[in-house]
């Protein structure tokens, strides 16, 4: 094996590498698991302009502008991000694409880190785009390049659908040199690039024709891998990682022919029909929706798929074997499930929790104690839903909390109720898609409506790894440009805007409780930064077991260093703090009713980071 050009890469790194090699110039993204590292990896290539945008719509628009200007462009986002970007996408797709345009959609079968499990192949079809599906890092790199070529050749945007597993898995990748691919400047061709009727009429035909052209061309076939087995009467059709998971169990099944699709839309209809005709059975193995299965059925190919394989979650080798067994395709010795079907032992779950010193901790401790109704939003503060806080009651999608509270207030008013409501939203989410909900509040609320908005300005987009957002600058230096959230909210016509230091627990608690009691709209900006990305290094705290009355108020703040433990000479369990984890934020000490938590004399800071 020639190893000089081989590197170990994750799927995310490989996409960035493919974009670089293909001469890509502008990459735009909004952070979200599983695709965050695509942009972060692209930033390592000085030839590429790679920046995060305020949200996915702006990222997609940035890539559109770059493509208009004749350079190869990439927009990467989490699957749900494509929903945010869908408006420009659905219209941009009508235009004859110039610079190669690839939209990378990070899908999440099994929802490892997402609020839903949407299969964006369906969205791509809706947008008249081709869809490529890589199965490992090498393919992630190769397909990114192919996507850009196809995009230019057929003048269409192309989706690369990549799943969480592929994003985070590694394999050896063969690299090659970069080739530049810059075209002429934007042509000022209004009928082609200004999408108002009647310019849009013939575009409907153009979109149809380009897909037909691609599906009848070898380009739709060459990415497929077909292995035909003599005498086999079954053809398996699969794609992406599912193919490799299938390969793991191949030796346990009867001889079958196998087709691995590289491009899942559009499919080469004539070629596939000819192939399927040779087989008695066609079986599709794919994760999430029956996308390929339905496409085959639309062509008139009789096939099965979701009858045997789950429509949700990942399809691991074991799941594939189980489906094949049901379909009667396993070899005789594997036809019955091995008898030692293990009953999974219960091991206590380990959900994520707020870091030591997290600025969100006192906020949810206060909300929990106030028992108020809370509409939450998406960020680290989503964890306020988990025990022991359980201090929030709804969560839908980024920025949704303000609209949802507005609707609830209206409904309650009409129904003759006046329950006070709290909306919680972070700085990143506020910039992403929360601002319209805030602007919408003026002239919407009645004086008796009681809404308290807690704006958690922690200076970063923490949950996705601490990317900068418009509020970060003020934490870095005086000169750094930033958006001042309290000023911004005031400029939106909201009068009661207060800035609080939530590490002054009592004061914050009083202000929050008063706002909840008072009708009208209050915006309380919590100003402490994220403790993971702006480290707190204060002297650690310690519990005095002689003073501690074992009330567990501190324990309920869920700070990782805290736990009840046995002390010599103490009858009851008393609270304790692991000094190697405490960052000295003082919240536990402030909630203690008897002052049992103190900084020991000459107490040291924790120098770990």
């Amino acid at each position, binding site marked *: *094996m020639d*190893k000089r050009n*081989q590197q*170990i890469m994750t799927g995310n790194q490989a996409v960035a590498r493919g974009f670089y090699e293909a001469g890509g110039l502008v990459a735009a993204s909004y952070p979200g*698991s599983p695709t965050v590292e695509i942009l972060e990896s692209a930033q390592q290539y000085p030839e590429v302009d790679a920046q995060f945008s305020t949200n996915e719509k702006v990222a997609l628009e940035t890539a559109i502008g770059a493509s208009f200007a004749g350079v190869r462009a990439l927009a990467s986002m989490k699957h749900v991000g494509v929903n945010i970007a869908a408006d420009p996408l659905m219209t941009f797709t009508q235009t004859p694409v110039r610079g190669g345009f690839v939209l990378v959609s990070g899908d999440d079968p099994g929802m*490892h*880190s997402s609020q839903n499990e949407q299969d964006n192949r369906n969205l791509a079809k809706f947008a008249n785009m081709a869809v490529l599906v890589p199965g*490992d890092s090498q393919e992630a790199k190769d397909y990114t390049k192919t996507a850009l070529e196809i995009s230019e050749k057929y003048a269409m945007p192309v989706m690369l659908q990549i799943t*969480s*597993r592929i994003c*985070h*898995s*590694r*394999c*050896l990748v063969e690299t090659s040199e970069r080739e530049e691919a810059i075209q002429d400047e934007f042509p000022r061709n209004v009928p082609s690039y200004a999408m108002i009727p009647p310019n849009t009429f013939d575009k409907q035909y153009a979109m149809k024709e380009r897909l037909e052209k691609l599906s009848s061309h070898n380009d739709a076939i060459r990415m497929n891998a077909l292995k035909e087995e003599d005498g086999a009467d079954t053809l398996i059709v699969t794609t992406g*990682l599912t193919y*490799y*998971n299938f*390969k*793991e*169990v191949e030796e346990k099944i009867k001889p079958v022919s196998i087709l691995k699709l590289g491009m899942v839309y559009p499919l080469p209809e004539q070629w596939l029909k000819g192939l399927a005709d040779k087989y008695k059975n066609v079986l599709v193995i794919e994760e999430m929706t029956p996308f390929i299965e339905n496409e085959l059925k639309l062509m008139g190919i009789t096939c099965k798929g979701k009858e045997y394989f789950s429509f949700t979650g990942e399809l*691991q*080798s*074991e799941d594939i074997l189980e489906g094949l067994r049901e379909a009667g395709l396993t070899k005789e010795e594997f036809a019955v499930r091995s008898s030692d079907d*293990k009953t*999974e*032992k219960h*091991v*206590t*779950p*380990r*959900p*994520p*929790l*707020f*870091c030591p010193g997290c600025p969100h901790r006192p906020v949810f401790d206060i909300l929990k104690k106030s028992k108020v109704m809370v509409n939450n939003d998406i960020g*680290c503060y989503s*964890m306020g839903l*988990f*025990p*022991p806080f359980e201090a929030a009651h709804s969560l839908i999608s980024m920025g949704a909390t303000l609209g949802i509270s507005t609707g609830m207030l209206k409904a309650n008013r009409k129904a003759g109720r006046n329950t006070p409501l709290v909306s919680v939203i972070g700085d990143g989410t506020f910039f992403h898609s929360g601002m319209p909900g805030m602007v919408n509040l003026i002239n919407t609320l009645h004086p008796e409506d009681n809404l308290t908005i807690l704006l958690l300005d922690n200076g970063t987009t923490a*949950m*996705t790894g601490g990317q900068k957002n418009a509020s970060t600058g003020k934490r870095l230096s005086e000169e750094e440009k930033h958006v001042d959230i309290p000023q911004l909210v005031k400029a939106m016509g909201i009068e009661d805007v207060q800035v609080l230091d939530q590490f002054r627990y009592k004061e914050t608690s009083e202000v929050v409780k008063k706002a909840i009691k008072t009708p009208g709209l209050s915006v309380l900006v919590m100003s402490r930064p994220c403790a*993971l990305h702006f480290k707190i290094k204060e002297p650690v705290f310690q519990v005095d077991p002689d003073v501690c009355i074992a009330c567990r108020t501190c*324990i*309920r703040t*869920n700070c*990782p260093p*805290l*736990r*009840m433990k046995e002390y010599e000479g103490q009858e009851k369990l008393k609270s304790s703090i692991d000094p190697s984890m405490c960052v000295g934020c003082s919240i536990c000490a402030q909630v203690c009713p008897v002052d049992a938590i103190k900084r020991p004399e000459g107490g040291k800071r924790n120098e*770990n980071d």
Partner: protein
Amino acid sequence: MKTINVMIAGIGGQGLVMTTEFICQAAFLEGYDIKSNDVIGLAQRGGRVWGSVRIGEKIQSPNIPEGEGDLLLGIEPMEALRWQESMKSEAKMVLNRHLVYPTNVQQEQEAYPQDEIQHMLESFDSLELDALMEARKCGNEKAANTLMVGCVSHFLPISEESWMEAIRRTYPEKVREVNEKAWKKGRDLAKEAEFI
């Protein structure tokens, strides 16, 4: 060569992703095919995290089939316990004695599964050590995972030279030396404990 399957289990913030990369690099330098995976789940804030590395002639899927694990690195003991069923009966495991309590245990709703962990240690060929403390002695407790990799390195057909080069490729300059030291320390500790 038969494929070797390595599982790594721990919690967010323990540097697991670097460790899977490190093992991949060493195996690659030795001339093997590799595939690996990291599963981080809903952000990394102290939640469960696991990684897998598969080393062999030709690897198809990065996922280790059920019951096929050869080596288990338990950076946190309870997290290792979760994977017990995924290991072969002759699998080897190294466990870091440093316990981190999940919310349920902190809130006194469930006990930390001390007995089950003990039982697992007894039923497998295993080594238990305080990797954090040992790594601290080498200069930085962040090298604990590398130290644990050193412990299991006896069971991987990879030369010391490749391991050392893999450290240079994976870790930033300023922590290279401490990782080299920790890896060697782990290798020696395993030998001393007759865990080879």
